[in-house]
């Protein structure tokens, strides 16, 4: 039997790449890697396509991330209870528990496979942290060794379906300007969250493509109002990494200190930034801690070292960068324990999926999201492989249709004056500012939504992209669509809860212990729903 990699090799000089697989995984971060491994261990033939390079793509690779590593037992129950008090009551303890459990298993597997964790003081591997570049380089080798065909720089542009069942995806090899198509018995969307055009660390590829593809297939999104996570960053740099800032003081232009005691960490910084520039200084740690910060978080010090500043004794200007749904919550709604989406053949994992049931209304940044990637990647990969084995049939004989619309196939005549860059700029201008998103209110939400609606009509009707240009036009469509879902949900949730900070409605309203689900592309419908548990598989 020809392997998938042999098929790729055999078609190296063809005008297009056309493959048939059991499972197609879209994405190149941890969730995609775990999904690919899980699917191959079920015996599936797996292709991974990524916009970038599996190993460097996404928000994890350039970071140093905690894991949510909580052993079973009383400690886990206490942790679930602790988080439940913080997360706005939206998480489902059974989902938190099963996520912790699956991640616990996955992290032990990593140690067993030979990932080099540091040891703790008792000489056991310290599994509560993963160093991004090493972790993702390790996962790449593991995925390759499992026989998976990885197609780097092969962004997926659209899903394929056969009479309502997802049957693969198509896109372009952007380094060779060559179309590709993979017909598959099941597809896992592990394409990450949406950074709404922000220059946060690892976010170039995180444009909400998976949301758009899922919505075109009829999937529902949930928790999109929880897209207002921000991180403090040395001004104009990409280093949206929070760890050293836990020991930072903040100062206004006149040298007065910004009071950050007893408050949500960055809220006072956000307020001060609305009034003028803010400086930070890592002046709250001990010399010993400062040494660990330098050694353990070296990229956080690149901006300072390369600017010749000692951030422990000298002030540096800071900004807040929006982290959207990457370290926010919202995404594709999962309808069952197996990470299925309600669209036959389509699964979602990692930040592409809504993490509401696990993180509630607060960030999953750091530990929870990385553990979620391990858990959901495994569930989605396993389920996709089983679905393909059961329902896939002979994929090569399937007649598939392409589902992509906005940014690929304009509804009306293509107009060269409607450009992707302008749509992206509208998203950046309207979504990222602190007084639009970190702090929300009805007036600005409505004003921004009007602009997003206008941008959507332009993109849908007139934006065309072919060849590698289609990557940008499609990203623009996904960014505009994601912004509309996020702000429409933010408007519907008429209260403040977790990262949704409505200055016009600052109270948390007990009647809103619920989810807001969004569907639709042209007409967006926001529906208030109970936060429902799913049926165990």
């Amino acid at each position, binding site marked *: 039997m020809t392997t998938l990699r042999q098929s790729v090799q055999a078609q190296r000089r063809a005008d297009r790449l056309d493959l048939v697989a059991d499972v197609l995984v879209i994405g190149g971060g941890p969730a995609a890697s775990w999904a690919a491994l899980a699917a191959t261990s079920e015996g599936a033939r797996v292709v991974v396509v990524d916009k970038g390079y599996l190993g460097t793509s996404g928000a994890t*690779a350039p970071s140093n991330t905690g894991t949510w590593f909580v052993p079973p037992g009383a400690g886990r129950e206490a942790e679930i209870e602790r988080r439940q008090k913080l997360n706005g009551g939206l998480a489902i303890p059974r989902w938190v528990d099963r996520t912790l459990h699956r991640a616990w298993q996955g992290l032990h597997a990593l140690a067993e496979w030979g990932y080099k964790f*540091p040891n703790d003081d008792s000489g056991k591997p310290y599994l509560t942290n993963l160093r991004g*570049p090493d972790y993702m380089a390790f996962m790449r080798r593991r995925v390759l060794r499992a026989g998976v065909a990885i197609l780097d720089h092969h962004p997926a542009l659209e899903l394929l379906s056969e009479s309502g069942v997802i049957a693969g995806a198509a896109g372009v090899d952007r380094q060779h300007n060559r179309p590709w198509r993979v017909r598959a018995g099941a597809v896992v969307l592990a394409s990450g969250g949406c950074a709404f055009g922000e220059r946060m660390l690892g976010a170039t590829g995180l444009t909400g493509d998976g949301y758009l593809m899922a919505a075109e297939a009829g999937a529902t999104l949930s928790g999109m109002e929880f897209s207002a996570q921000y991180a403090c960053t040395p001004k104009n740099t990409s280093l949206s990494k929070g760890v050293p800032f836990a020991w930072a003081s903040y100062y206004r232009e006149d040298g007065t200190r910004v009071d950050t005691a007893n408050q949500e960490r960055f809220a006072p910084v956000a307020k001060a930034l609305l009034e003028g520039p803010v400086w930070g200084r890592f002046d709250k740690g001990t010399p010993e801690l400062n040494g660990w910060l330098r050694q353990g978080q070296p990229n956080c010090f690149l901006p300072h070292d*390369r600017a010749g500043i000692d951030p422990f004794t000298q002030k540096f200007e800071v900004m807040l960068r929006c982290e959207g749904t990457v370290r926010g919550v919202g995404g594709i709604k999962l309808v069952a324990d197996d990470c299925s989406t309600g669209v036959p053949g389509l699964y979602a994992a990692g930040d592409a999926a809504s993490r509401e049931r696990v993180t509630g209304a607060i960030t999953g940044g750091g530990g929870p999201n990385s553990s979620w990637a391990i858990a959901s990647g495994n569930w989605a990969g396993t389920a996709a492989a089983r679905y393909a084995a059961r329902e896939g049939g002979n994929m090569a004989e399937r007649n598939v249709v392409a589902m992509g619309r906005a940014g690929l196939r304009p509804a009306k005549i293509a107009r060269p004056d409607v450009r992707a860059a302008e749509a992206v700029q509208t998203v950046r201008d309207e979504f990222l500012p602190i007084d639009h998103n970190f702090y929300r209110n009805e007036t600005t939400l409505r004003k921004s939504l009007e602009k997003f609606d206008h941008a959507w009509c332009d993109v849908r009707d007139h934006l065309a992209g072919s060849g590698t240009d289609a990557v940008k036009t499609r990203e623009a469509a996904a960014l505009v669509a994601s912004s509309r879902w996020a702000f429409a949900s933010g408007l519907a949730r008429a209260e403040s809860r977790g990262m949704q900070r409505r200055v016009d409605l600052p109270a948390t309203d007990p009647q809103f212990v619920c989810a807001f689900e969004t569907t639709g592309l042209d007409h967006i419908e926001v529906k208030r729903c109970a936060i429902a548990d799913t049926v165990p598989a």
Partner: protein
Amino acid sequence: MIEIVSASRCIECDICVRVCPANVFDPVRKQAPVIARQEDCQTCFMCEIYCPTDALYVAPCAEGPTGISEAEVEAAGFFGGYSRALGWNRGKPGGSENDPTQYIRTSPR
């Protein structure tokens, strides 16, 4: 953003072309790769650590190029600085076993 591909350090392996998640480089036959799409750079520093000869320099400013020169980077000793801090060597992973982040996580805030 990515600002420098040092032709004197580069061995034309094109690894940066493959690993850049934002696809900013283009290969050039028998020459060092060129920065073809600088505005797409996400300032993630991944190319620096994957480069086996420390031939790349990413300035921390993510909003636009700073115009720093190769001579300045060389004189400051910035080439390969992030790689060395991690313990990566010749473009290969290393040093994660020495990561002291566990002590950061348990330090009082």
